[in-house]
Each structure stands twice: as C-alpha cells, then as structure tokens.
C-alpha cells in the first residue's frame, strides 16, 4: 500500500507534470531546430513568435466565446488554433519576405541572421504587448480536470491522490498527433524528404532540382504550426504572459541543443530530457521516502537536491555540460 502511495505521489508530482511540460518544450525545440537546420540560424525570436501565435489564438477564442461557440468540455482555444495558424503563417512569411530573405539571398553568415532575429524579437514583442498588453491572461474554458485528486482517493482508497488536468492530457495527445504527423511528413513524403535533403546538403539539393523557395515557404508554415500549437498548449496549461514566453525561449534552446540541433527527433527527446531533469532535481522527496522507508529511517529534511528557484538553472547546466562533452548533442545533430 505504501509502495502504491509512493508511486502515485511520483506520478502526480513528477511524471505527469514533466510529461506535459516536456511536450510543450519539445514542440518549441522542434521549431528551433527546423529553423536552424533549413534556414541556418539560431532564431532568438522563438519565444516571441510563440507568444504571437498564442495571442492570435486567444483573440479568436474570445471572438468565438462572444458568438457562443464552444467545444463542450474541451477548451474553445482548440477551435481557434487553425485560424491562428493561418494568421501566424502569413505573419511569418511576411517577416521572411521583408527581413530574412535579403540576408539569405546574400548568403550572410548565420551570426548576422541571428542578430536580425533579435530585431524581429523586439518588433514581435512590441506588437504583442501593444495588441493584448503585458498582463497574465487565462483563456482556458471547459472541463478542468480529467481526474480530481479527491475522486481518485475515493475510488482507489489510497492516501495519495492523482490529479490529471485536462490540459495535460490535451497537451500530450496533441503533441503525439502533431509530432507523429511531422515525422511522417519528413520521412515519408517527397516534400518532407526534400526538406531534409536541403538541410543536409544545400548545394546538392539545388543540383537535384529542389526549389529552395518552396522549401523555405513550407518551413515557415510548419514553423507557424509548431509555434502556435506549442504556445497555445503552454498557455492553456499555465497561462499566457508575453514575458514568460520570452523566457521560455531559454529552456527551449537548451532542449534543441541537448537533442542535437538540426535533428528534429533529438529536439523532441531533448524537450523531455530538460523537463524531467528540471522537475526531478528540484522535487522534495521527503514524502516519498516517508512512504518507502520504515518509520525509524524517515528523513527530517526535505531531501531536495536543489531549491525550486534553480529550475531554469538546472536545464542550463545540463546544456553547458552537453556543450562541453558532446557539442553535437546527445542525439547527434549538426556539429556547430
């Protein structure tokens, strides 16, 4: 019984939250890695692009709510996502046309493109704040929990409750669908393969007759899908605040590099590596040991490896270690 309680405790406080958080990071990391692999620059506007997509989705959500549209127990935001993606896609293509294209055609070094992306970051941040303001917004509606902790306790008769938020389930399900579609696209379709070929060896891709303009356009469209969905999922699960989104860029970068930048599958796993290590290292295991160990050996301190204040610091430290010992990432990406 105690063992089961301990297990549920870990599930409730570590596994489920880390899985949801990891999925959100994974989507962002694939976004970063695609831009890096195909357009060949580190996109410092990542977080703000995600916040832009989320903002559009929120505006659509409000509009649908005012019309009285809803998805029942599911959040209305899911209905808004396709519209937001269209909007986001045109925003990205516009940025590409007016900003990035020039440097791409001039074959500017990646560093210059990264600097340019900082300009885009400032502009996008301004647009988001001017339109929707800097404050914290919740736009979740529908059923909040799939299983409440108290219900779980009643059903199983355990001391520990397992609460599963519907947003966590939505996050995980959507991520699975999105990521498997993406990998199917990249590995099985002609266009997807040509994208990989372009990322692998640009000159040879051109010699094979692959059209770079089309590749760039599709990349931005996929980026728009990833940015919007990733942003909305994070916003549904936590809340939407432009500053938080800007900061999320950091663990996302960490995930992309840990997974091996330029390698989408690595980025996907990198998201979970970062999320699990953040939560595992900052969780206080006192209660867990109280269940597992006999009474005489019960700990009196929190048994916490690091204070939760260092959550971000954990992922960054992992990144630094990976950079030192395996610069191409755990799952082998491009060597930078």
């Amino acid at each position, binding site marked *: 019984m105690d063992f089961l309680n301990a297990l549920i405790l870990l599930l409730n406080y570590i596994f489920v939250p880390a899985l949801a958080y990891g999925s959100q990071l994974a989507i962002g990391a694939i976004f970063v890695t695609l831009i890096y692999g195909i357009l060949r620059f580190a996109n410092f506007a990542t977080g703000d692009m995600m916040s832009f997509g989320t903002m559009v989705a929120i505006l659509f959500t409000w509009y649908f709510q005012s019309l009285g549209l809803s998805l029942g127990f599911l959040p209305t935001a899911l209905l808004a996502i396709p519209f937001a993606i269209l909007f986001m896609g045109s925003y990205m293509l516009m940025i590409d046309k007016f900003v990035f294209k020039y440097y791409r055609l001039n074959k500017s070094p990646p560093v210059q493109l990264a600097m340019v992306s900082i300009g885009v970051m400032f502009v996008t941040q301004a647009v988001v704040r001017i339109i929707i303001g800097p404050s914290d917004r919740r736009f979740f509606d529908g059923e909040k929990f799939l299983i409440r902790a108290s219900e779980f306790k009643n059903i199983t008769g355990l001391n520990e409750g397992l609460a599963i938020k519907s947003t966590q389930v939505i996050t995980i399900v959507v991520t699975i669908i999105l990521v498997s579609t993406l990998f199917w696209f990249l590995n099985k379709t*002609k266009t997807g*393969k*040509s994208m*990989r*070929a372009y*990322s*692998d*060896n640009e*000159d*040879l*891709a*051109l*010699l*094979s*007759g*692959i059209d770079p303009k089309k590749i760039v356009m599709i990349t931005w469209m996929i980026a728009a899908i990833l940015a919007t969905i990733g942003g909305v999922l994070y916003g549904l699960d936590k809340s939407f605040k432009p500053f938080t989104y800007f900061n999320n860029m950091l663990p996302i970068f960490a995930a992309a590099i840990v997974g091996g930048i330029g390698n989408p599958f690595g980025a996907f796993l990198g998201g979970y590596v970062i999320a699990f290590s953040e939560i595992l290292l900052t969780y206080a295991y006192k209660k867990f040991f109280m269940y597992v160990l006999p009474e005489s050996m019960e700990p009196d301190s929190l048994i916490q490896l690091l204070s939760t204040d260092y959550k971000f610091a954990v992922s960054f430290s992992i990144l630094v270690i990976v950079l030192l010992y395996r610069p191409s990432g755990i799952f082998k990406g491009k060597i930078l």
Partner: protein
Amino acid sequence: MAFFEANNMTGGYGKGPDILNSCSVNVNRGEIVSILGPNGAGKSTAMKAMLGLLNLKSGSVIIDRKDISKLSPQDRVKEGISFVPQTKNVFAGMTVEENLEMGAFLLNQDYTNVIDEIYNLFPILNEKRKQFVGELSGGQRQQVALGRALMIKPSVLMLDEPTAGVSPIVMDELFDHIIKVKKTNVAILMVEQNAKQALNISDRGYVLVTGENRYSGTGKELLNDPGVRSSFLGG
C-alpha cells in the same frame, strides 16, 4: 556535330579575371571524355561553365543541337545533364534509397524501375539501401553519388574528380562502374587528376593549360604523345 559541345568558352568567376580562354570541349553519347591538365588550368571551371554555374562572356553550350547557353543550372538538369561534384556529393544524413529518390526529384512519373536499374548497376547499394550514406565507405559513397546523378536518366554525366581521395583498388572499381554507365549510352565527361588511369578508359581527352586547349586526341594518342607524357604524365 557532337551530342554535347561547348564552343570557345571565355569567362571567369564574378568580375574576376578570365579563367577560360576560348576553351572548347565536346562529347558524344556512349563515349568517355577526360579533361586533364595541371592545377589551376580551369578544368573544373570548364565543367561548371557547361553546367551554367558561372556566366560566360562569350561562347556557347549546345546539347543535341539545342543552344542552352542562357539556361539556369536547374533547367540544364531538366535537359538531361547530370553533375557529380567532387566533394559533398551525397546527402550524408539520409539513406541510400532516399539519396536516389532525391536524384529523381524532378521526375514526375514512377521511378521505381529506375532505382532497380541503379541497383543492378551497383549491387552493393541494394544491400545497403536502408543505411545512412554517412556510414558507408568512400568508394560506396561515390557509387551513391553516381547513382543519384543517374536517377534522371541523363544523356550527359559530368564527374568532377570522381576518384579523388580513394585508394587505388577502389579507383579501379569506380572506373569499371563508369565504363558500365557508358555502355548505357550516356555521354560521360570527367575531370581527373589520375591522368594515366583516366586516359586508359577514355575514348578521347583534352589537356587544358591556363584555360586553353593545349592537346586533344584519343586516349591512346595522348598517352603516347611525347609532349603530354613529359609534362603531365611524369615521363
């Protein structure tokens, strides 16, 4: 009139000095033609010019009586000219089969039978079809590169130093493969450093010096020409 010919090409990179000075090269179907010469003679440049990778000041490139001097490299690919660069000539992060598929990117019809033909030509590729090209040996990679270029069923195949950096045994094997390709009625034009071996399998050859044709003739003639021997074949 030859099947694929470049006449009196003059030009260089960007606004730099002319590298080619009235250089002419031609090749027929089912024929191997080598371009030889010392370093900096403009061998690779001549090939790139024929592919449309640099702008010519004068001269023409003609395939099957059609003037393609003004076409972009991509459009020349559509005319049936395939090119294997010297380095980075495969997609290292993709499988053998995917490499071949990328070679057929421009084809709209079903190309499974073309892939089968390539596998017949290079049986080792069939064995390794699901492997990443980055994991193959140098000689196998060159076969992938050849196979990728052959996917569009080209009438002209241009090879930039196909044997650079491979061992002598692999070199012989590669030359055997090139002869096999020639027998499928493809016109093959190649730049080579290993002049003797290249001339041995070539029907004809050109020796370029400072972007001009210095000697030309059949492989045997060049091998026996005292001038060529003393200056390029090491006596």
